[in-house]
């Protein structure tokens, strides 16, 4: 991979979570059969596209996400489940979509930062 195709910002300091406003929660998991990273969508299904994830902003909504994750595990559809933070829209640097707050979750949503050729989508 030619070095000049990797942006310098790839090794700049990750954003401090403390300065990131959290805009809601989404449910993330890996699909059992193929290990693909998926998110609970509005229809109750599992999508690899983080932008299609169902966003909840209330404690009750977060409980519903957890319940859906548990149900997905019991149904042997997903594993390694977690409810994760996404940024508030004004903080995510992009006018569309759901940007996970933590770098780890950003990488899970997009792909390895060192292999943009394998990215599932544009960097968040």
């Amino acid at each position, binding site marked *: 991979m030619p070095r000049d195709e990797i942006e310098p910002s790839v090794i700049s300091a990750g954003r401090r979570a403390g300065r990131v406003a959290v805009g809601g929660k989404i449910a993330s998991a890996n699909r059992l059969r193929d290990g693909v990273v998926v998110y609970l969508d509005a229809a109750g299904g599992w999508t690899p596209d983080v932008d299609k994830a169902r966003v909840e902003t209330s404690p009750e909504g977060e409980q519903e996400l957890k319940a859906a994750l548990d149900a997905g595990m019991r149904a*042997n559809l997903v594993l390694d489940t977690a409810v994760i933070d996404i940024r508030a829209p004004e903080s995510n640097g992009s006018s569309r979509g759901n940007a996970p707050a933590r*770098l780890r979750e950003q*990488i899970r949503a997009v792909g390895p930062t060192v292999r943009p050729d394998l990215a599932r989508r544009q960097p968040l």
Partner: protein
Amino acid sequence: MYIYDKFDQTVVRERVAAFRDQVARRLAGELDEDHFRPLRLMNGLYLQLHAYMLRVAIPYGTLSSAQLRRLAYIARRYDRGYGHFTTRQNIQYNWIKLEQAPDILSDLADVQMHGIQTSGNCIRNVTADHFSGVAGDEIDDPRVTSEIIRQWSTFHPEFSFLPRKFKVAVTGAAQDRAAIKYHDIGIQIVRGPNDEMGYAIYAGGGMGRTPVVAPLIRAFLPQAELLSYLEAILRVYNRYGRRDNIFKARIKILVRDIGAAEFTRQVEEEWRQIRETGVNLPAAEEARIRRFFAPPPYDSVTEPVAALTQARAANPGFARWVETNVHTHKVPGYAIVTISLKPPGGIPGDATAEQMEAIADLADRYSFAEIRVSHVQNLVLPNVKQADLFAIWQALGKIGFADANSGMIGDIIACPGLDYCALANARSIPISQAISERFADPTRSAEIGPLQIKISGCINACGHHHAGHIGILGVDRAGEELYQLTLGGAADQTAEIGQLIGPGFTAPDAVDAIERIVDTYLKLRQPGEEFLAAYRRIGVAPFKEAAYARG
């Protein structure tokens, strides 16, 4: 190299069938994840950030060209066209589907390969000197010992549910190229008082949160008694290793807590009771295994080899590569080649299917069809004629693996880090790329000389940063990736754990700090003095001061 007989092959085939059954039960919901996880781990299948990751065992880092071609096929057919060679001489694939894993294991079994015990709380792949069998300083080929241990440890009924993972490494020479003192058991082949063959046994070494250099447990163990002694160590560990806290469950904690002397006493007491119970390998079987490691049919070649001398004189780039990447072979006219998988700006240890196939072709043509994987994440052609070195170098240039950086500052060990690994706190590959680019100039690299940089993306230390001359540990502080530097680590027989020099740096600052450290070394070194020796002579102070001096 070792070739399976019908028994070895049956073991692997039966394992594939059993795993296929386990996967089917998991997908049908008969097995829940808590109970399935240890079963899939014992076949090397992890769940990582992006997908399942399969770790394929490469026993003591030895591969045939046919096996390497199969690894390329797996990468192409089931993954994204590449694999990653690891610090335990294995290969990892990052994009595996659970439902395809049984087929992958079956395809591997076709070439006598598997993922058995590359994960889980069991005895892992035995690693060994990547120059085994061809190094001039070797007392005995550690691969014979390693193969004996491999068979004994495979599906061991008593030791498949240990408190934690268990790693063994073997060196056949006093020069330790296998980092044995950082393993749960480290084995050094030595000669006894009557010149008989045997082993020095170290136990309780490790990396991770609490790095430890293993103490010597027994100075001389007769060769024939190896398996009973290992059983005794494993049994003491299995009984008394902690099971209440996974961060305190390795054997190094047990040895530290009860002391090496008491640990040795318990092992020797257990050993006394079992050494005559038939655990040891019969001499006939040892001889049978040893025959597979007989030397290949070398030609008789006199040195110096004119073709090599002339090529070096005519081509400075080639000459530089010979200086760094070609090592003395015990047979005149031959050489050992390190294939650097560390192109500047590249991902350490990664190879595409095409690159693997090209290397398999080179092995067929020039190295008796054999390749080695080193724990430094490079590949080795162990049996190359000096007359063929120039052609090999040119061929490696075509696939991007001809960098003259073996053992040099650009030969960085880096774990996959947060780009791939679910355990990581920070990325390790981008900082590795930045460092290798900063020091890419071959003249500068040669001027700096041997310098081992090792990077881990979390405290589990899979990048062996504790043993780096310069070690780098990635941490997460309030959502920011920071990099702590350690200095003065060593992985060989002079094993030492690196010293943390201070607070962490951002990635760009860490690269600058490393450059200042290197410049300090260049300024203070004595003629011909390598980095580690200079550091040991001078001490940490000037390096620390330089690291934290800002422009």
